[in-house]
């Protein structure tokens, strides 16, 4: 019975983590779909958003969950500016390979991390909200429960937030004209131009939206994690693994990929050892590349398109 309890608790923690991972992956896959490049500054953008949330909390006492509504718009603007003034000029130079845009994002990430180190030092910081220790136990709700499970309030709130943001994004992409333009551009950018879509503007908007989403993820993460300038790289890798596992540019793939990665990491920590979680992450990465090169999206696509 204890073993079952441990397993279920690990599964629940994994899903909660996976919900946040899905949000990080969604931001990257959105940019990937439209731009056809991997944004390797993704984690650093999240780090910037976390500093915004941190300073809002420390200086003004703004709750990190409220900070979502400030950090996301701020990062949206930053993303649009990066796309418009840094990435688009590189696209226009025809002799440069598309890989150079990816290298450019690596550079942007480095600059952001270095700036954070210069301004905020490499101290570990956190936002000790006063409800951090609130935890719900299954036995509080169901007295005779044969097993015991617990969920921390912070994780639960972060998870619910990430689901709400995911739903909002789904609604936006499927119901609004701008959302349809984003999807059309990612499916066929030349045809999109012929239909009167200003592809450059859609790209800038998508980069902004992807940045805003990962900014939201950052705000949801900060009550749960420590913040330091070099934190971005780790999350860029996580987003990258999710994007590959989910299938490049696929939103549903990113959500499922994020959940799988969360559960897998949680399982590795419980059954193999805390330090092994990153190893599990890369085991999944390699397995996806070898056995499912198109990612989860290729499975879904073959079912939906019947090919």
């Amino acid at each position: 019975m204890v073993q079952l309890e441990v397993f279920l608790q690990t599964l629940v923690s994994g899903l909660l983590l996976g919900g946040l991972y899905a949000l990080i992956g969604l931001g990257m896959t959105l940019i990937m779909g439209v731009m056809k490049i991997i944004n390797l500054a993704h984690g650093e953008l999240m780090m910037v958003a976390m500093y915004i949330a941190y300073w809002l909390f420390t200086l003004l006492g703004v709750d990190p969950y409220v900070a979502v509504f400030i950090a996301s718009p701020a990062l949206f603007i930053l993303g649009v500016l990066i796309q418009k003034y840094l990435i688009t000029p590189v696209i226009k130079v025809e002799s440069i390979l598309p890989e150079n845009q990816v290298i450019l994002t690596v550079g942007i990430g480095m600059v952001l991390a270095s700036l954070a180190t210069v301004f905020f030092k490499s101290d570990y910081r956190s936002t000790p909200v006063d409800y951090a220790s609130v935890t719900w136990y299954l036995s509080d709700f169901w007295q005779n429960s044969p097993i015991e499970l617990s969920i921390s309030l912070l994780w639960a709130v972060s998870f619910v937030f990430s689901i709400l943001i995911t739903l909002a994004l789904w609604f936006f992409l499927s119901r609004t004209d701008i959302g349809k333009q984003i999807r059309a551009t990612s499916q066929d950018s030349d045809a999109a131009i012929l239909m009167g879509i200003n592809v450059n503007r859609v790209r800038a908007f998508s980069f902004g939206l992807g940045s805003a989403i990962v900014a939201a993820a950052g705000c949801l993460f900060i009550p749960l994690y420590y913040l330091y300038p070099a934190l971005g790289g780790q999350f860029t890798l996580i987003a990258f693994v999710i994007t590959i596992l989910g299938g490049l540019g696929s939103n549903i793939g990113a959500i499922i990929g994020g959940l799988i990665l969360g559960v897998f990491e949680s399982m590795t920590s419980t059954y193999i050892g805390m330090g092994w979680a990153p190893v599990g992450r890369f085991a999944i990465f390699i397995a996806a590349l070898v056995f499912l090169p198109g990612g989860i999206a290729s499975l879904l696509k073959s079912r939906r398109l019947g090919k």
Partner: protein
Amino acid sequence: MLEVKNIDVFYGDLQVIFDVSFGVNKGEVVALIGANGAGKSTILRTISGLVHPVRGDIVFDGQTINKLHNYSLIELGLVHVPEARRLFPEMTVEENLDIGSLRGQAKKQRKVNKDKIFELFPRLLERRRQLAGTLSGGEQQMLAIGRGLMSLPKLMMLDEPSLGLAPILVKEVFRVIEQVRSEGMTVLIVEQNVKQTLAIADRAYVLENGKLVMSGKAADLANDEHVRAAYLGV
């Protein structure tokens, strides 16, 4: 309505279009015919602004358009239905039609137009919630034309609309083109199916290796020795 004046087009260092000039008048169906690689699609892509001419001008409705943003041409009433349909495969039929009507007047009249398209292509109505990628080739072509019509064009450019379709569907496509034309649409069509194209076109231009070699009334070209030998196989 459309005037192409002395355009030269390059892909990198390679010149593919040499000093081509031609025009399309209001209400006409004009065909560009020629072999594979003659430059027919390149000319349409140049008019649409996907490729830029090194020399020459393109004038539409009295306005020089080759310096305009390519995405704004559709608002002037110029729509390009590209080769191989180029639908958005993971969007539904209806969403594809929505994408055809993003701007100006077309957006305001989206609902009315959509009903008209569904009237023209009842098959699309049955499948309006289906993903475009799951349609058959013929249905995809109908959707591509429908998506083009959604923008309320004055001039419709069709690139190889019969490509890869079964003979009965080819007939259907040409029937639709005639119907659209009878409602006052001007059409510029690029086709390898020369016989049927000349049958519905008013005038035609023959393109060989990037140069215009012949032009005239479609009916005359259909009886021309050279055209018959090179394109009609008789």
